[in-house]
């Protein structure tokens, strides 16, 4: 816990933000090409965020600001926990549960500040976001449980290093195929991508929790979304696609996985929130259970 760790941590947050925001810009172009139009510049996402920071803003009281700061602070801390290609700012902190529960700090902070703004649409958006979280997180937790049982370790970097060095087939995605599929579907839920984005639906509930944000709070919410995407995609990458031996391989795999989710979500409709819950509790939960029983009782996937 020396000063160097904190500097590495700060660099990790900065690097994650820059990498993910430029990737989002590229993906906005990809989605545009999906719809046969040219799409914005690749650094458009940066401009959007800095423009939001440059505008004046309003506040509805201290909980409105405190919630936003707590959300972004929690998520920035989680980015420091994430092991990227074997490098970690604070070694020994990358337990899966710590990461997925500190994510909940970010979600709770945003929910608190959205509800604090007093707008009914924000509360409806928050209630949908929490229901959505209950939907996608249970199948994912069952798969994570199977992984921990199988490899006897909860630390993400160890799980990633176990899969490396044996080529593509060493990845958990091929050793535990059902678990891999469930986790990718859960990734769509985590990112709030198209099939499961009823909690930020712009037309229905005026962009849900973000309804009262403007100016710097809106910029903070955009950065929060970028960092949360980085955390969730790199979590799935490390658990199922073998995390990168070197930084370059990590970034290439990350880009492919994120663009895949973007393309699929570009053509998907939007679930109502109770349809999303019933969907997640039928197919993905079933697959996760089958995968768990296969690993525990039949010992496959070792």
């Amino acid at each position, binding site marked *: *816990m020396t000063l160097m760790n*904190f500097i590495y941590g700060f660099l990790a*947050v900065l690097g994650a933000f820059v990498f993910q925001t430029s990737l989002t810009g590229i993906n906005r172009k990809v989605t545009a090409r999906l719809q046969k139009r040219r799409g914005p510049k690749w650094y458009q996402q940066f401009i959007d965020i800095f423009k939001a*920071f440059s505008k*004046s*803003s*309003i*506040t*509805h*009281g201290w*909980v409105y600001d405190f919630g936003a*700061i707590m959300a972004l*602070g*929690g998520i*920035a*801390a*989680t980015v*420091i926990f994430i092991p990227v290609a074997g490098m970690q700012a*604070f070694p020994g*902190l990358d*337990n899966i*549960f*710590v990461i997925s*529960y*500190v994510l*909940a*700090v970010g979600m*709770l902070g945003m929910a*608190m500040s959205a*509800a*604090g703004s*007093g*707008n*009914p*649409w924000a*509360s*409806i958006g928050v*209630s949908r976001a*929490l*229901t959505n*979280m*209950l939907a996608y*997180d*249970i199948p994912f*937790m069952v798969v994570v*449980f199977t992984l*921990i*049982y199988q490899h*006897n370790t*909860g630390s993400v970097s160890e799980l990633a290093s176990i899969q490396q060095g044996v080529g593509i087939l060493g990845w958990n995605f091929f050793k535990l195929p059902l678990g891999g599929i469930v986790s990718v579907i859960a990734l769509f839920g985590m990112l709030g991508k198209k099939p499961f984005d009823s909690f930020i639906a712009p037309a229905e509930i*005026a962009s849900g929790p973000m309804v*009262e944000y403007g*100016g*710097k709070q809106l910029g*903070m919410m955009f950065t929060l979304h970028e960092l949360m995407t980085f955390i969730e995609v790199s979590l799935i990458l490390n658990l199922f696609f073998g995390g990168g031996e070197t930084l370059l391989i990590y970034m290439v795999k990350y880009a492919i996985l994120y663009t895949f989710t973007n393309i699929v979500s570009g053509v998907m409709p939007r679930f*109502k929130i109770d349809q999303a*819950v019933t969907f997640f509790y039928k197919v993905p939960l079933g697959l996760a*259970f089958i995968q*768990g029983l296969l690993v*525990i009782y039949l010992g496959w996937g070792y």
Partner: protein
Amino acid sequence: MTMIFIFLGLSLLLSYVLSRKQPTLGAYFTIIASLAGLISVYLLRNSVGVTESFYYLNFQITTIGWYFAMILLTVYFTSAFFNPFWMDELIYPAAYNSLYLLSLVGTIGLFFAQDLMTLFICWETAVWSSMLIVQQGKSRQAAWVYFVISAIGSMSTLFAVLLTMYLSGTSEITGALTYFTTAPVAGALVFGAFILAGLTKIGIFPFHVWLPLAHGSAPHTFSPVLSGGLVKMGAYIAYLSVAVFPAYQVFGDSLKIQGVPLPIYGLMILGAASIVYGTLRAIQQEDAKRLLAYSSVANGGYILIGILMMDQMAFAGGLMHLLNHAVASAAAFLAIAAVAKRTGTTKMSELGGIIHRMPITYTVYLIAIISMAGIPPMGGFVSKWLIFQGLSEKGLILLATAAAFGSIGSYMYVFRPLSAVFLGQLAPKYEHIKEANPVMVTAMLILTAMSLLLGVLPNLVLKTIAKIQIELGINPIIVNGTATLTENGSVDMLQVFTVFGFGFLLILILFMVLPKSRRVGLMDTYTSAEFIHTPELLHYGHSFYAPFERLYEKWPSVLPLYKRMSMKLSELGEWAESFFFHPDPNRAVLWIVVVAIVVIIGGAQ
């Protein structure tokens, strides 16, 4: 140690006399009495093994007993701060104060009981006194249901106590219970009876019915004690029936699931069922107190699973969750009680925007639900993390899913009061309410500091739990500095907290650098350009998770099942009664003839 019991007994009578004259004085006295009890029990921490007797009740100090007593005393001490403000609302304030201390004495006696008879006597005092207090709440029916289900527990404890004393000959707990390794069949019976008492008191799935009723309608200042303290009695009994009573050896030869014998696995499934059931019901509730009551059902499930696992991680997690849940749910109940004191209601759809008038109560409730939901900086995370590690070590996939469902589901139901009661629009009728009384605020802040401390430095508690595990012979939880090490990975909570603080600081600087934002009133929100002037219309507090609740609206609840059973019972009674007390005489003639025949045959033997 008997000095403490004598002292508490005297303070009991003194508080009765005091509050006969001046109720609030008696209430303040209960604070002093519980503080004295807390300090004196704390001083006993290194005199383990001392046995004392008090006429025919004999007690023994054990680390586990000391640990349970400390949890209970903190909850009693902090909620005692709220007594003085409820004196005018209670029907019998003097009885309330004295019964408050009586239930305290009963539960501490139970934890330190050395032989089975003392165990049963202290169990009865606690049950009786708490039932008489719950009766002073809103509904008598709640107290009646609470007593009936506790009575099931008492009867099964009595049966187990008498059977053990008869079979094993000695009444001393450890000696009597370990006898059953030689007699597994009777052992199973005793185990069943004991664990039944534990289940009724923790409020596990089939026996949870009393919990929402009693907590919901008990006087506001007693429900934190009910959910924080008295539920732990059941956990102690569960501990006795699994750790002291050699359950794993007695059921050693039965079918094993992942190394856990079938009857214990069945109980764990009951615990998992109560987690899922408590979470689903809590998400539906409209009243904040009933919601917290159902959350106690869910957390009771975690505690039961943790204690029944009896291994390095989940057992430690279970015991620590006892403390975390006690502190967190007591703080949450006290915050809701403070709001109820100011606004007069705990129904969520009638409240809103209380944060603008009671910010400290809001922060207390926020820290409490962060710990109850098991989110890192607070204590709740460490215990739930240990339980999940224990489960994934043994590979019990069904329990792990229920545990995951419980912890993710808890985000939903803990956030509902936060948003419906504290955030959202402030109704004009609550425009001029003031912050809670400073005495109340100190109690709540003590509990908040405790749950923060437990989160950042879990090793303080885990050291005592490790001592308990050594006494039981299971390999203890390894703690070095603030990191808790387990086979499946370790977590250093102090580091997590510092990194979290670092992230928070980073963003605070970013927030301060950017231009200051303009303060805008709550009603100046985006209503798609329509003019709305009444805040109540703009507050979203009613049926907060409507789409999710619709999914399981039509699921049957257990309550009607009990109602039908009770009706069947009373019909049976009437049918039997009609035989003996029937107006027309030939019924009487029938019975005379029957008796005559029996006498003749009997006489002929």
